[in-house]
């Protein structure tokens, strides 16, 4: 019996919808931060378990910052982070699909590898913001909200990320 006093976070349908809307982004965020995908998944799940257990005291509109806060706090105590190993989409071979010359293919491979390496080498804050935008396709305002910083700060981090990526590629 859902009463007015009971938060709708406790409703399975609401909770599931909320979960599906945010779990991947949260897991990814933790992955960008700490580099270990399994670890990121565990922490993300843990955060949602806490939300479910305490659903009565967390209204749905506060649930997002609740899980991000819990995830952030719990990962702080755990292992030192690893390299963020990313990969490209399965079918992604490069942009110019018509050009199959060996020189082109070689250059293409080198560039892709360099870019991944450069992303790995970004500092944590820049990498998290940058990948949230590139992979999760979040708006700067959303990133700002999740990281608890201003939009200006997000822009600064992205800007610096791009600068250092370009530098690394040129090396």
């Amino acid at each position, binding site marked *: 019996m859902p009463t007015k006093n009971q938060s709708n976070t406790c409703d399975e349908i609401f909770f599931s919808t909320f*979960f599906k809307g945010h779990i*991947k982004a949260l897991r990814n965020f933790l992955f960008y931060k700490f580099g270990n995908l399994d670890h990121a998944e565990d922490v993300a*799940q843990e955060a949602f378990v806490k939300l479910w257990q305490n659903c*009565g005291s967390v209204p749905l509109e506060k649930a997002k910052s609740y899980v991000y806060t819990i995830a952030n706090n719990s990962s702080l105590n755990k292992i030192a982070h690893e390299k963020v190993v990313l990969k490209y989409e399965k079918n992604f071979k490069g942009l110019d699909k018509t050009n199959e010359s060996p020189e082109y293919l070689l250059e293409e491979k080198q*560039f892709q590898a360099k*870019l991944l390496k450069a992303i790995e080498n970004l500092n944590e804050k820049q990498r998290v913001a*940058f990948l949230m*935008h590139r992979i999760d396709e979040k708006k700067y305002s959303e990133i700002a909200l999740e990281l608890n910083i201003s939009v200006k700060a997000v*822009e600064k981090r992205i800007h610096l990320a*791009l600068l250092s990526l370009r530098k690394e590629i040129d090396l």
Partner: protein
Amino acid sequence: MKKDHLLAKWLNNDLSKDELAEFEASPDFEKYQRIKNYTAHLTIDDLDENAMLSNILKQKKVAGKVISFDKKWMLRIAAVLVLALGITFALRFFTPETQTAGFGEKTTCTLPDNSEVVLNSGSEIKYKKWNWNNDRKLELKGEAYFRVSKGKRFEVHTQLGKVTVLGTQFDVKARNKRFDVVCYEGRVKVNYKHTQIVLTHGQSVTFENEKQVNINVNSLKPEWIDNEISFHQENIRSILDEVERQYNITIELNTNDTTSLFTGKLPSKDLNVALQIIGTTYNLKAKKVSKNKIIFDKK
């Protein structure tokens, strides 16, 4: 726009036409464009959301959290109540307590240390509950009988003098100019102006107009407690005052002979007998004018 964030704006497709044209003309544009394009194709292993979700939903909710909203309100209400109670208590605690006995009535009250006070008609005591056990001090107007529990010094202040004791039974009467103290048990120290005397049980002292009279008493408690008024060498006016207080009436006296003193007892519950005794003693005739007014005339 701050130059700093130009790249960020561009990545987010937020540049204006002019800014974009300018940026596209820069030598680094190609490289940035490539980073932008390639990073759009980055991916991470998929996640089995449904498995994880069913895992989570299996977890038990924390019991009782469901009613936490109510609890919050209960807590708020409780807090307000506690605060209100606290203030009331503090007020009661710190403001002086007053006990009165109106005309025609007697009041018994218990002090914080279980000492007992019986107030005779038309009397009042005032004391502070706060720190009572360390500072047993009260103000008395009129007459009261005290049965004091053992403890620290116990002081009774009146307009006429001060009585200090350490656990005993005594009666203090301070009316008009006359100050009577009777000690029934223990020891009592009496201060009147510059005089200080100590009474032991069965002794009493009366101060009236600088005159001191000591008498021994046989009774164990004041007569007025048993509805008798006892007088020892008192003039007719103060006797009539006492009768007025006991019966809550007014008495008019039409005689010049007010000097002779009266010693004896009068009932405080039978007005006719009391009036008869006074009438016979002073050779007066009592006339009831109304329910509450008596006139004494010479016979």
